[in-house]
């Protein structure tokens, strides 16, 4: 099985290049995921660098660009991929080394969304009640694993990563706006009411298309906009 992988080591390379790798057919097993293959390729060359941890799509470490589309290597079946499999780091993020990108800005925008529950009412001794319907509003929002596939697939985020929060951070914003327990909705909407932070989304839906968890950031962003609109009338 043939691979073409983006290589760059800032200590030795003046420019990035694509390197060919071959995984022997004897090593390819049915049901193998792309990450399994990468781990075997790393045995051929221990300098091949990528992040990984849980191996089943919940930690969000191994996002990368796979044959032109962002995804998680650990839940990407090898058999579904056209060869040679072309692997690149996320587009639009600074490359640290090989498939590893600098996600500082991505995390910064996440923090900008103030992704924490705010409720300053006196705490009850037990749980705050929430109806199953209200809790249901969080489905499709809270499951985000911060892998970055969506924001790294978003042209608006590529052009304005410092000013547009990006789909991942906006999904978080929506998660707390929707939470019936949160008391900071007004403050959250105010912070988002900005030509760039929220409104740079042009609804091209790349985020939704690539999300490995099947979430829909584009819809969440649309919902925030609608809430915003309602508030202004």
């Amino acid at each position, binding site marked *: 099985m043939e691979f073409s992988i983006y290589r760059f080591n800032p200590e030795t390379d003046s420019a990035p290049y694509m390197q060919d790798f071959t995984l022997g057919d004897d090593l390819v097993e049915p049901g193998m995921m792309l990450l399994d293959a990468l781990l075997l390729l790393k045995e051929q060359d221990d300098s091949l*660098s990528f992040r990984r941890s849980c191996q089943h799509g919940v930690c969000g470490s191994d996002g990368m660009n796979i044959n032109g589309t962002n995804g998680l290597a650990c839940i990407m079946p090898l058999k579904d991929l056209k060869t040679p499999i072309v692997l690149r780091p996320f587009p639009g993020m600074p490359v640290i080394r090989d498939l590893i990108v600098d996600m500082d800005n991505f995390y910064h925008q996440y923090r900008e969304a103030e992704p924490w529950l705010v409720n300053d009412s006196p705490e009850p001794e037990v749980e705050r009640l929430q109806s199953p319907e209200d809790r249901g509003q969080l489905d499709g929002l809270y499951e985000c694993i911060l892998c970055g596939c969506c924001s790294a697939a978003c042209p608006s985020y590529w052009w304005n990563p410092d000013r547009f929060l990006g789909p991942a951070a906006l999904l978080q914003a929506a998660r707390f706006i929707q939470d019936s327990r949160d008391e900071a909705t007004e403050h959250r909407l105010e912070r988002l009411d900005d030509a760039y932070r929220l409104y740079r989304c042009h609804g091209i839906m790349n985020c939704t298309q690539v999300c490995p968890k099947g979430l829909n950031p584009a819809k969440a962003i649309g919902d925030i906009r609608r809430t915003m609109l309602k508030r202004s009338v």
Partner: protein
Amino acid sequence: MTLTTRKFDALIVGAGGAGLRAALQLANADARVAVVSKVFPTRSHTVAAQGGVNAALANVLPDSWHWHMFDTVKGSDYLGDQDAIEYMCRAAPKVVYELEHFGVPFSRLEEGNIYQRAFGGQSQHFGKEQAARTCAAADRTGHAILHSLYQQNLRAHTHFFDEYFAIDLIKDDAGYVLGLVAFDILSGEPIAIEAKTTLIATGGAGQIFRTNTNALSNTGDGMAMALRAGVPLEDMEFVQFHPTGIAGRGMLITEGARGEGGFLINDQDERFMERYAPNAKDLASRDVVSRAIAIEVREGRGCGRNKDHVLLDLRHLGADTIMKKLPGIREVSMTFLGVDPIEEPIPVFPTCHYSMGGIPTNRDGQVVVPVKDTPEDPVPGLYAAGEAACVSVHGANRLGGNSLLDILVFGRAAANHILGFLKDNRHHRPLQQDSVDRALERLARWDRKGEGEAVEPLRRELRKVMEDHCGVFRTAEVMQEGVNRLHRLRERIDNAVIRDHSRTFNTARVEAMELENLMDCAMATIVSALGREESRGAHSRMDFTDRDDERWLRHSLYSLQDDAMDYKPVRTQPVTVESFPPKERVY
């Protein structure tokens, strides 16, 4: 070159649930707290916990912390320390309510209370009817908890060293732990982080076994650091094999699947757990179910072409329950097997899941070691919590839903004790240079060039040795052979080399240092297992098939020095209630 040095009041290694719960407690009390983690915090393995966290909230069925305590003691096969278990079960409702206030999106019941489901080994009235004690956010409870804790820590301004790899603890001659030496994975630069207290919350060592449910990062780093600092590890022979890992792959299928009503069948479509546990059936505790599956397969009643697994049947639950209550495991099953549990049963087999053993602590999270006649003398400045620690609330077998509880209760308890320690110890003690130098040498060792074996094949061999020689069923002969193999492997690891010597994000170096940690944890596990000549909980000896309370109602302590074993008594006395004396364990 001078070494970069940073100073904090409290240092935490590991950003899973235990580390982040402790950090939050400390940050909210205005202590200067830093968290070192080799992965970005929300990538820690707590994120993968599925089923839920136990607490006697009685939202669904009647419940009490005392019944929870009884179940935990019984589940531990009476090896758990009953003072710590009482403390944990009493604290459980409070820490779960706290989580809810932190924003955890728990699933809800009609009235708006936290949803609770049945899990293995749970009962009402001290061993009678099944209880429903596990608080859940669908089957993504760990994710929900870890993300909420991280978010609250951001709000509280906890300082994070993301993607820093901890090398070793810094200790002085008086025995105080003064922080640790780490390196920044991004730049490759070492750093000394001084702290008045250091909490190890680095999780388990599931990667010592070939097939496991664990993340690749679960390499027992903190346990190995403790060993190298002269702290023995407690009860390492007790490794939990989760009954329902995806056959051949290892990914976890939560016990919640059986809690919601799923059951196991063999090749004759027989619900075989009825034979092994007539009352609890599929919700007997994990050691019992794992052994039953292994026996079914060994006796030729396994499923599939190779008859090497059994099936977990959820079809009768219906699409609605599966999509609402178990969406995550449906996703995993479809991704890795192409099996939709709504239509087909899931092939499963016991898989290494959890380390009951770890760094010995008391119920304040202080690391305790034997000193002369005292079996439990605190190491000043050193704490441990969560899977890395052994407090011991799980004893010989952990109940499902008690690990998320353990990390929350004891992460919080350790932080509270640390706050007291900080009041009494206002100043940093002087750094001891030779201790720092030793850690730096360990890092520099991997700069060695020339011929030598590569890391990955050695890691694979280690995991194979553990699987073949220290699995579900154990004998002295097979384990002794395993010990011999590990000794030879240890020498080969000493001579291994990596080819990548760059500074920037060198993952080869990280993996090499993880291999050293795995080696120490594997040796601790198999030597402790060889020492314990009885069967108890998850430790099943074919050559010593019975539990032997007279000789073995005691904790094992493994020291790195000469691979020596020592033992200490079990704390059978709870804090306020009467002790649960050892009884025969039936489900």
